[in-house]
């Protein structure tokens, strides 16, 4: 299992930042040498002494994922979605920054609202820190665990399109099942499990608009449904899948799934099937 290391650049009297969260001289050592090394994210070069360079190279190679708190995330604005060390970041926070997530759909960032222990476990299980592919565990399926996650870095994620077909079973509430119909050749499809009547809390139909089906967040997660970004009427490609736990959105207790758009939940980093 991945080792967990606490590291800091600190003053002799033990501070890692000033009162205003600026760093003063703390990072000066990154630019006081002649050995130029680009950072993993290639956002700038460090210039280190030979000893510093040896230490830096070993340190950078050793890191698979980062866990940080909300303060650091806010101060850096989430490193614009890509940390300097170019590894996944797990942020411990009380509230998920939904606006930031919407603005950085490809960022390999997770937001954990259930405490630092869950965050550390999450970071340990990221594909980059897992010792084997099978060690990467899926997102916690428990509805009480709020893990807001974006895509983990992966070279092959595909989207699959489903079209909802509602058929009546003769009862007053339509029984709805979903079947996957690829919108174009070349995209792989997946047959979703059918939803039973009692899993669907309401159905709304407006002429000319997609059918809206309300299901609980638990049902959504268990069946691999994710509500889309409500700022866009279109379904998003798998590369921009967003897992929302409605409990983290104030006032919302259910997912709204638009028919005709479904993003299967796979394991992070795995291609969808």
């Amino acid at each position, binding site marked *: 299992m991945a080792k967990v290391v606490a590291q800091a650049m600190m003053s*002799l*009297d*033990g501070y890692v930042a000033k009162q205003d969260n600026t760093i*003063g001289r703390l990072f000066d050592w990154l630019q006081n040498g002649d050995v130029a090394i680009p950072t993993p994210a290639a956002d700038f070069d460090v210039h280190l002494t030979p000893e510093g360079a040896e230490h830096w190279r070993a340190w950078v190679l050793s890191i698979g994922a980062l866990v940080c708190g909300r303060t650091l995330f806010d101060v850096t604005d989430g490193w614009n979605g890509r940390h300097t060390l170019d590894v996944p970041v797990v942020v411990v926070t009380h509230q998920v920054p939904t606006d930031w997530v919407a603005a950085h759909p490809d960022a390999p960032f997770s937001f954990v609202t259930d405490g630092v222990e869950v965050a550390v476990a999450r970071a340990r299980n990221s594909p980059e820190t897992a010792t084997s592919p099978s060690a990467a565990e899926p997102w916690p399926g428990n509805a009480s665990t709020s893990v807001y996650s974006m895509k983990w870095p992966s070279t092959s994620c595909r989207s699959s399109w489903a079209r909802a077909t509602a058929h009546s079973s003769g009862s007053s509430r339509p029984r709805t099942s979903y079947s996957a119909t690829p919108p174009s050749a070349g995209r792989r499809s997946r047959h979703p499990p059918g939803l039973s009547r009692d899993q669907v809390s309401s159905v709304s139909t407006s002429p000319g608009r997609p059918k809206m089906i309300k299901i609980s967040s638990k049902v959504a997660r268990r069946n691999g449904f994710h509500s889309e970004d409500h700022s866009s009427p279109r379904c998003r490609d798998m590369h921009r899948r967003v897992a929302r736990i409605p409990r983290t959105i104030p006032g919302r207790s259910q997912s709204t799934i638009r028919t005709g758009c479904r993003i299967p939940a796979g394991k992070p980093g795995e291609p969808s099937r």
Partner: protein
Amino acid sequence: MAVVVADMSISLDGYVTGPNDSRENPFGDGAGMLHDWFGDAATDEDRAILQQLMDGLGAVVMGRTSFEKNEGDGGWGEAGPVGDVPCFVVTHHAPSRSYPSVFTFVTDGVAGAIENAQQVAGDKVVHLFGATVMQQTLPLGLVDEIHVHVVASLIGGGTPLFGMLDTAISLERTRAVITPAATHLTFRVLR
């Protein structure tokens, strides 16, 4: 003029004693390991560092807290913290009873105590004993060097060596010696 040095053993989280330190419990709770580097765990390198410290000692300046904790019976006995090396105690009120002559009580402030100590130390070193005196003198620019012996432990509470500062103070590390017992760091205070 004699160099003024703050020389302390500290945990990684910067404490010189644990919580609840007292005359009966001078190092506080959970901090007994702080001085192992020159006791049970000492290597030759550690002993050499300690010897260098002792040989260079010309005078000591300390606060009343350190004095009360260690003087007399059960502590330094009839001597000072380093035998008969002159020791200046910074205090608000002169003591009512008499103490061994190695101690001089200074009531007009820490700067005066350091000046007296420097005169006595000659070309040797003035050592600041205890966290309080160092915290008082550092912002006044009266400290020339900081020597810390960092012990591999997190105490989590007690007497911190460093206090709050209004402005940052730059240091230059002049020596780093790593032994199994401690990490000995020497810094020059830049002014």
